[in-house]
Structure formats: C-alpha cells, structure tokens
C-alpha cells in the first residue's frame, strides 16, 4: 500500500486534458495521470464505475485478472488521495464472459448498477453484442477491443462507445513497416488466418508493403483450426521476413514449423497475441521464441517513458504478476475518466461522454490517448523475446 500511495503522489503532477491548449505540456509530463490534490468542488453523487469484465474464478474460464486489477489499482490511488468531488469512486465488476448468451445478461446487470461509465468488455464478440443496448441506455463505455465495427464510423458505432486499443489494421501496418524500415526486408512473406482479423490485417499489410516499395514474395492463408502449416511454411523459404496475422495457436504452429524446416532465423512478426503469457507455452520451446517479434499495444515491462517503470514495479509488487498491456489500458481508462470529472466538476454520463469525445493528449501508462473516430489509442510497440520476457524494439505513435 505504501508504494501505491507513493505512486499516486508521483503520478500526481499532471492534470487535465481538456481542450488541447496545454497538450504540449501534458506530453512532456510524467506518465501516470490524475490530479495532485483533489480539486475543491463537491459532486452531488459519487462517480460510479461498472466493469463488464470477468475475474478469474467466476463464470468465464478464460478470465485473466489484469483488467480488473488495473481498474482497482487506479481507483485505490484516487480514493486514497481523497476521491473525486469529495466522494470515493464507487466500483462494481459484473461477470461478463467473452462469448456466449450471457453477455447481454451481464450488460443488463451492469446497467442496473446505475453506472456513470462502463469499462470493458474485452472481447469483440461481447462488445458487438452490447453495442445497441449501450447506445440506447446512454451510458459511455470504454471497451478494450480492436473491433472496427464499433469504431465511430463502424456499422455498430455509437457516440457512447469508445475503444482504448489501437486499430487492428494499424497494428498490422506497423508489422510491415518494421519489417521494411528496421529489418531491411525486401521480399516479404505473409501468413494469415481466414477470419475478419486475419484478412483485414493482411490487406492493410499489402497496402503498406506496396507503399514502402517492398514486395510480397509469398502469401498463405489457413483456417483458424489448421493442424498443419508445412506447405505454407515451405513457401516462406526465400523471404526476408514472415508477417503472421494468425491466432495464437496458428502463430505458435508457424513458429514450430519454421524451426522444423530450418527457417528459425527468419524474423517472424506476429500480432498482439504474441504478448500473451500463454504464447510461450504454445510454442513449447523457449529457444524458438528468439526469432519471434510481436506488435503489441504497449510493453509496460520495458518502457522508458517517465513513470511507467514505477507503475510496472508497483503493479508487480501489489498483484504479483507481470501486467499485460490490458492492465495498463484499464488503469489508464480510470484516470481518463477521473480527469474528465475533475475538469468538468460533474460525473454524469453525458459529461463523461463529451470528455471522451474531446480527449486529446492524455498521458497514460500504456499510451498517450486522444480521441479519433471513437478510438482512443493510436500507438503500438514492436517487441521481441529475450530470455522469455518481452523487450521493446520500437514504439510507433501513428497507428491508424
């Protein structure tokens, strides 16, 4: 707890992020946000945050603790520093599976909690299932997915729905850019899974590769449940880099097959799932991870922006595991909302919605957040494995 308090003081330097006129000042300020001393105003009612995210041990067997821990860490900091408008923030997390019929139930339960803002969900399926009802209810939502259909111009988009992950096609472009600009690749191999995720990533990469004057030398797609990639990998024999927009399972399979075909030293750039903790288990042999790179939202374990390392260490101390980018993003989401409330001295849904809409240059742990098309984050990080942990290679701030 001591470290938490210290952190909240340390993180205190920076403030609001309203009109953008002091955005430049914000950017030079520390990561980790919020106000120093609670501004002197009185909210009529406390800010109520409700998360539609499952915690481990509940109904969703795939729940990871990161998201809710990130939220609770931020709320604890703020409340220990006096809360918002004279009240501590109130928080509930509602069990919300990533897939299945119970998603809408969970949303209904969450709305009954009378939230001023909803945080989550963390799966595309869930956010698509919730979009219409959220729009009708008029409660702002910050979801942690890259689902393009709920972006501002998406078919399920709503002025109430914001996402705090960078867009998938932007991240896919980063993979191509890194390959050409940093690795000097001219002949590029592409692997991707035949899903919306894989196909849109592949198309974005095609465009980027062409713009950069490199060439797609081989391209192979496969089903999400592919059991063998020998043919696809053999086609990668003469490429400089393999860009792989597959599922964690197929990326793992590709890593194994590349190694078996003697192509382990061809750089292999995968999507964000490479950063999941279970990815190393899938590959099964740590030495095979050496040639693997991934485009992740951020890498709190290795980020020299001010305050990030302190946050990372505090998180590890408090919760005992490496925070994923999701933990950082949800931590940031709370601080974004708190900053909006402090600025407007009001905590109603419409105020928060407006604050998110005009968000510009909010410095967080994972990224500097600005709204564009109801997507709040626009940066990605290329990481690689070193002794089993993720090392940041390069950060990109202009991801879609």
């Amino acid at each position, binding site marked *: 707890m001591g470290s938490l308090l210290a952190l909240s003081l340390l993180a205190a330097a920076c403030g609001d992020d309203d009109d953008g006129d002091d955005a430049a000042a914000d950017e030079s300020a520390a990561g980790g946000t919020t106000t120093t001393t609670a501004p002197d105003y009185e909210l009529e009612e406390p800010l109520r945050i409700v998360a539609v995210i499952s915690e481990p041990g509940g109904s969703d*067997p*795939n729940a990871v603790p990161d998201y809710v821990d990130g939220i609770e860490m931020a709320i604890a900091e703020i409340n220990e520093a006096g809360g918002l408008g004279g009240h501590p923030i109130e928080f509930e997390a509602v069990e919300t599976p*990533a897939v299945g019929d119970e998603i809408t139930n969970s949303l209904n339960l969450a709305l009954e909690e009378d939230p001023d803002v909803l945080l989550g969900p963390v799966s595309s399926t869930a956010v698509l299932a919730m979009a219409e009802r959220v729009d009708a209810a008029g409660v702002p939502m910050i979801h942690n997915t890259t689902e393009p259909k709920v972006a501002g111009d998406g078919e399920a988009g709503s002025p109430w729905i914001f996402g705090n992950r960078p867009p998938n096609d932007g991240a896919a472009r980063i993979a191509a850019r890194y390959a050409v600009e940093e690795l000097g690749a001219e002949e590029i191999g592409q692997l991707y899974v035949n899903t919306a995720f894989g196909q849109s990533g592949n198309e974005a990469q095609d465009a980027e590769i062409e713009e950069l004057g490199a060439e797609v030398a081989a391209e*192979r*797609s*496969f*089903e*999400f*449940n*592919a*059991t*063998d990639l*020998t*043919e*696809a990998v*053999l*086609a990668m024999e003469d490429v400089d880099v393999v860009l792989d927009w597959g*599922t*964690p*399972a*197929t990326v*793992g*399979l590709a890593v*194994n097959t590349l*190694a*078996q*075909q*003697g192509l382990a030293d061809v750089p292999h750039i995968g999507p964000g799932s490479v950063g*999941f903790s*279970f990815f190393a*288990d*899938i*590959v*099964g*042999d740590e030495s*095979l991870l050496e040639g693997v790179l991934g485009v992740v939202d951020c890498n709190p374990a290795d980020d020299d922006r001010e305050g990030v390392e302190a946050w990372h260490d505090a998180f590890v101390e408090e919760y005992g595991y490496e925070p994923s980018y999701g933990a950082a993003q949800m931590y940031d989401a709370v601080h974004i909302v708190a900053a909006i409330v402090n600025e407007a001295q009001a905590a109603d849904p419409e105020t928060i919605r407006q604050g998110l809409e005009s968000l510009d240059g909010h410095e967080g742990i994972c990224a500097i957040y600005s709204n564009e098309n109801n997507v709040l984050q626009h940066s990605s990080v290329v990481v690689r494995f070193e002794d089993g942990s993720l090392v940041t290679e390069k950060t990109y701030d202009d991801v879609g």
Partner: protein
Amino acid sequence: MERFVSLFVTGVAQGAVFAVVALGFLLIHKATGVINFAQGDLVTLGAYIAIWAATDLELPLLGAYAVAVAALAAVGVLIERFAYAPIRDRSIHVVVISTLGAALVIRAVIVLWRGTSPTRLRGPLGFEVVEVLGARIPKQNLLIIGVTAVCVAALWLLFHRTQFGRQVRALASDRMAAQMQGIRVARMSMLTFGLAGGLSALAGVLIAPTRAVTVDLGFGPMLYAFAASILGGMGSIGGVVVGALAIGLVQQLGGGYLSPDYAEVYPFVLMLLVIALRPQGVLGSEVRARL
C-alpha cells in the same frame, strides 16, 4: 524433390490421423448404423486429458497418453449409454442429433475445465527432424505414421480374426439376423463406442504435439475423417484408410502444386467427385452400397 517429399510425408501423416478418427466412425457405424458426430470432440478431450495427466498428475508422457486413451474409452461407453442406448430404436436422425448434442456437452466441459486459451501437449520427440532425400521431416510425423500402421493392422486382426470383429461385421451386414444368432447387440454397441473413444484419444495425442491445443483441435480431423469414410464407402478398414490417405495427400499436394488457397477444399471436392462417380466408395463393392 525435397518439397515433394516434405509435402508427401506431411500428407501421409495427416491422412494417418484422419484414418484413426475415421476408423472410430467405421466401428460405430458398423455396429450400430450411426455416425457419431462426437468423434471430433473426443479427439480434443483426449488431448486435454493427456495434458492434464502430464502436467497436473505429472505422469510420464506415455503414461499420460495411456490415461487419455483409457479415459476416452470410458467416455465412449458413457456416450453410448446416455446419448445412444436410450434412443436406439428412434429414427437415425434423432440418434445423429443426439451425438451432436454429446459433442456440444463435451466441448462445454472442456471449456469450463481448461478454458479456451491455447495450450500444448509435449510430444515424445519434441521438434526433432530427420532429413529424408533432403527434406526435413518432423519425427513426430513419422511416429504418427508408424503408430497408425500398427493400429490399422491390429484393427484388421480384430475385425477378421476374432469373434468380436466378426460380430461387428455381422451386425453391419444384417442387424436382425445377427440378433437372432445370439449376438448381444447392446454389448457390441457399448464396446464399439468404447473402442472408438480410445481411437479418438489416440488421434488426439498423436496430433496434439504438432500444434497448439485448443477446443477446436478435433474439428478439422473429424471433418476430414468423415470425408475419408465417405470416400472409403464406410465399408472396410482398407477403404477407410485409403480414403484418409487420399485426403491427406490431396490436401498437401493440391495445396503445394495447384493453389494453396484451396488446400482445405480439395478433400471435399474429391469426396463429392467420388460420391458422384462411385457412390459405394473407392474400395466398396456393390454389396456395401447400402450405407
């Protein structure tokens, strides 16, 4: 040449896995007339049980595999008891839907038990490869082919050299007459479901080390095994094995030499062609045409 060898061995190995699954289909179909659509999820469950036995119980790998095969034989019997026996006299459609129901239950149980995050089952040979005519062949693929060959030979003996096998074939030939010969139909169907469950687990532990294990592990193999069964005319072990190898090879060589974009489709094109031209299957005789 290396490319051909590589694709060929991969095709045979994939075909071998499809064959093991398809033999499960064949056994149950012969003894009961039913297509058991839970077969694919039994493959998945087998892999997960092996993972559980190897990691949670810390059994040596072969022990874990044995646990998986034994457990799945039991699960096969349970499916027979709960999803087949109570409705065996109903229309074939009801029974097939019931096996689909069993498949969904198994899937739900796996997700509740292990989650949907991908994991891994170690293979006894890791990622070792051998060079054959310049091609790098994963040893696991050779293991798959070898184990399948032994398994096919054993099943052939079982079918043709034991009373059990003859009884299964008699049931397939004429159910009523078989019953009148005193063949215990209920016991036969339990045994075949059990045996097919064990075969699924075998397919699961063979294929799992070559890739990440997710709840979808068995789905592809089941589809291809089904196509293989149709190709083989659902009649004989030989037909099914030939059908499965044809599917594995068509998939790999078609993907390698025609167009990789349709690799997943070639097997089904082949299956449709065979249905159109030889409805009794590649090796089927006209006696078997009644499927």
